[in-house]
């Protein structure tokens, strides 16, 4: 489980299975619901991201994401940038491994594929306010470390379960804890509060409840935003053209395919 899942979570920002969970659900039931809400085999979607800096200036990034679960149960993820023009064709390929994911980057202007070993999980992804670690947490909701239930909350009139996750020390997290607000009805994560050292709120992910949508059996929020409260920057992401469990050839998830495609 790694960055492949994590990136998938960015794509979908999903939670658990369609029927939702009962209000008296246990921690395990909620985690299961989130897991079951994930696509079974593949998903494709277009992501429109607006990245705002401190001064409120923004730049736009459009990328298409392909996710596939292979027979070994591990995931592959390909993200290819479509806009702006200067970045078109730049791509990331993430191959989940047992221990650690392999990441490859292709920049058309360089003309080569490079393997990247980014040991810093708190690094920014594509200059957005999402870090690798954020994606990982959003995907897993319950990662390594301890989890506990918090009191029920209301988000935009919707009931939400609160899962409090404290990453383990081995993970090397930038966060002391993350509070997930899981929608009772759809098991989508409506909000996630990321706390730094001293339990100080540093980042917040919010899903627009009016953008909740369904592709197949999977619920997701089309519009989400991540705000960095320390730096006062934020990123808004809109997911479009979501397809779940459609056919994607295996060879798409190879380094040679990165080169060929471009």
């Amino acid at each position, binding site marked *: 489980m790694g960055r492949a899942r994590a990136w998938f979570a960015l794509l979908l920002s999903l939670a658990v299975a369609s029927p939702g969970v009962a209000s008296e659900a246990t921690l395990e039931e909620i985690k299961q619901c989130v897991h079951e809400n994930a696509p079974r085999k593949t998903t494709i979607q277009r992501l429109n991201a607006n990245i705002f*800096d401190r001064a409120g200036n923004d730049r736009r990034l459009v990328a298409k994401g392909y996710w596939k679960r292979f027979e070994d149960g591990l995931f592959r993820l390909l993200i290819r940038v479509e806009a702006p023009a200067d970045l078109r064709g730049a791509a990331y390929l993430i191959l989940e491994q047992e221990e650690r994911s392999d990441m490859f980057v292709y920049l058309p202007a360089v003309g080569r594929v490079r393997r990247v070993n980014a040991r810093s999980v708190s690094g920014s*992804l594509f200059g957005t306010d999402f870090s690798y670690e954020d994606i990982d947490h959003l995907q897993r909701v319950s990662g390594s470390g301890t989890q506990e239930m918090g009191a029920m909350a209301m988000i935009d009139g919707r009931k939400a379960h609160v899962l409090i996750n404290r990453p383990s020390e081995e993970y090397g997290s930038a966060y002391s804890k993350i509070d997930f607000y899981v929608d009772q009805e759809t098991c989508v994560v409506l909000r996630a509060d990321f706390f730094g050292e001293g339990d100080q709120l540093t980042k917040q992910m919010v899903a627009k409840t009016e953008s909740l949508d369904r592709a197949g059996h999977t619920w997701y929020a089309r519009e989400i935003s991540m705000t960095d409260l320390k*730096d006062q920057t934020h990123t808004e992401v809109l997911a479009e053209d979501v397809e779940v469990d459609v056919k994607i050839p295996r060879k798409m998830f190879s380094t040679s395919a990165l080169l060929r495609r471009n």
Partner: protein
Amino acid sequence: MSRFLAIASKYPVAVLTVVFLLTAIALCGIVDPKTGAVRLEIDPSADRLLTEDHDAREVYDRIRNLFGSDEPLVLALAGAELFRAENLERIVRLTEQLEALPEVHHVLSLATATNIKAEDDLIEIAPFLDEIPRSPAELADLRATVLANPIYGGSLLSKDGQSTALLVYFNRLSDKELIRSGIDRRIRALADQERGDLELWMSGAPHVKSRTSEALQRNFARIVPGIACIIGLMLVAAFRSFRGALLPLSTIAISLAWTLGAMGWFGHSLNLVTTIVPPLIVTLGFAYSMHVVSEYYDAARHAGPGADRRELVAQSIRDVGLPIAITGITTIAGFLSLTVNPLAAIREFGRFAVLGITFTAIVSLTFTPAMLALLPSPKRGVGAHRETPLQRFANRLSDFDFKNRGIIIGVSVAILILMAAATTEVRVSTGYINGWKESSDVRRDYNEINERLGGVNTFYVAFESPVAEAFAEPANLRELRDFQHWLRAQPEIGGATSIVDYAMLINQSLHAGNPDHFAIPATKRLAMQLYLFGASDDLDRLVDSRYQKTNLLVRTRIQDSERLATLITRIEERLKGLPPHIDSNVTGSIVLLNRTVDDIARGQVQSIAIAIGIIYLVLSAMFTSFRIGLVALFPNVLPIAIYFGALGLSGVTLNPATSLIACMALGVAVDDTIHYFARFNRDAKRAAREMPATRSALRVVIRPVTYTTAGLCLGFLVLTTSELRSHAEFGMLAALTLGAAWLIDVTLTPALCASVRIVTLWDVLRLDLGRDPHSTIELFQDLGPRQARVVALMGSLKRYPGGEKLFSEGDDAHDIAVVIDGEVGISFVRDGSRVQMSKIARGKVVGPSAMASGRRTADADALTDIRLLHITAEDMVRLRHRYPRIAAQVYRNLNRVQGQRIATLMDRIGDRWRDPFEFLPIDPSDGDSNRG
């Protein structure tokens, strides 16, 4: 004014009640009576010292908002064994602990700075200390890697590899909030815990500001009581009684309470500059109350035992009240000029100094006399009837001044010229660190980090372009690189980091580490893709999201304002060579602080010019002559020249603290001049000669002037014990300037007065010449009322009882006399018989020709009680020099009188030839009083 001054002696209980009530209200402005919380705080922030150039501030705020703070707190760890695994682990632990502090935004250290390493197809992105090696070879390799990094080599790690920096950036908190949080101490504690055997230094603007704030608070708690103790001892020595000491001390305490209370009520804090207000109030309060008490003791000594207390107080206040009021006005004028200074901190200082002086004058003229009126009279007169050593010294000194007045004036003018020349060497300087002494640990730490790690001071060169994605264009990046190369070549620059460095590093890493690709991306497309790949918080601090604004972070070792100003000018000149589509600004906290230098210089000239102008006008009005005003100004301008000359010669810089001295010294020094001039004038009138007046005036004023100057000087010298260099310099220079002012007042001022006769405003206002003197007194015809009084005051007004012989025929005569009140009979004796010539009443001149002839030609007797105005030839000479127009009119009037007398006399002679034995009575209106 007299009625106001008399209130304290007439209604002392009421006055004291009001004073205590106001004091209670004032104290509530300092401490909240309900909660006990201190309202009046010390604000250590330096914002008030920054220039208020709105454009410059706007640019700085905008750049800082976008790219973050340019003022990190800098920790440095150093040791020969720095690159040992355990020490590197210390750095990692310390970084984590610092980042856990709620006030900290992030820490840049070897534990967080990102290293991009490329080997064949693999790119590793991780902090330098992500995995700490153990073997010596790997450690050496790591050190070499850091040093080779163009961004961090030389800044995060010193060139010798033995010192490393941790830059602590804080969340958006004001200086006040940051200092109040105590973050500085907590960081120090954490660093001390982790340092092991490594040396630890701490610096950076947040640290210096914190320490400065602590020093201010310590100073305040120590210096004000210290000054009060010194003054208390001076007072005991002066009056040889505890009452003589306690009363002025109480006056000072009340004045201080009112001033600080007002600050508290208005919501102001004591800042780096306004913390000088309390010592100023203490020392000025001492001076004013000293004069009041001294005058009272003198009056008591002369009156002897059994004199009415309240009458003594009333008399003392009458004598000293107006001079105190006027000295208060002139001192206020000195500080009022500061209220137009470009710097907010100095304007605030000016306002509260004015308020404090006003309160001090009011309290000295109300509380002090009210207390004196209620307390029993002194049992023994101070120095009763015995000449004190100080008075003996005054006698000798006044003789010396009188005899050598030409030399004294000449030497003074020479000093003025020399000091004016030395003024050209004065340097203006600002800077947080400059306020600390070289021996302080703050300064030492600063110097260590500054030297080893490329400079503690940082500023920005910010670039903007209206062109979209301008700073992804290789051409623009080349411009930046060329500029950066030029900048790094400047001797003052320790390092400069820009987006170009990142772009080149990422480019190299994506080309398998090939050094040939440590270059600017060849295309915009490549640059954009490199930025995408290298997106990070570090990059966000160098370029905005649209790549239209970019920041170059510059480190410099220099903190001297002059050198920094020169550097900035040079940079700005170089920046003019950029293409027109790239705008640039040099900005940062130290840049703004440097602009303050210009403000200080400009403000100083402005303040002094205004102060001198106001004081000159006040003196001219007081002495009813612009010329005398100029004479009186000279002994007050000279100490200022000496002060600036001392600055130029000593190398002490003009900064926000020392820039206050000139106006303060001007306002304080003029007090002594006014007291001396006033006393001299009074005594000169009585004695009708200058020499005795020179001596008597100096005898009287030397004690209060000497004690107040000594008190002021000692009080300011207490400031030299401050840890803050700026305060110590202020204290030393203020003491020097006031000491010089004293010397000038006891030498130059008497020398100047020796050849002048002064007419003061209050003399003019007080003089009674009866109704319409300008139209009823023939000598004053065609003069205005004020002009008539001036003439009268140049002469001497004397009273004579009825029946007194004024002069006799044949007496030597050197003056003319004008009848102000009463009647004078003119007669002569011939053949044993007294012949009555005429009766002369108000307005007539007696003996208009006597001054010229030198001999009386008749007898004059006071037929009633009379007042006669005597005007000598010398008086006329002085009048001619001082008031030439008035003198010309007086001569015209005198000629007319003489002409009329001669005409009448000729008529009489004609008549006498007709009847030689007829002596016609002379109608005074005929003017036949030529005899006399």
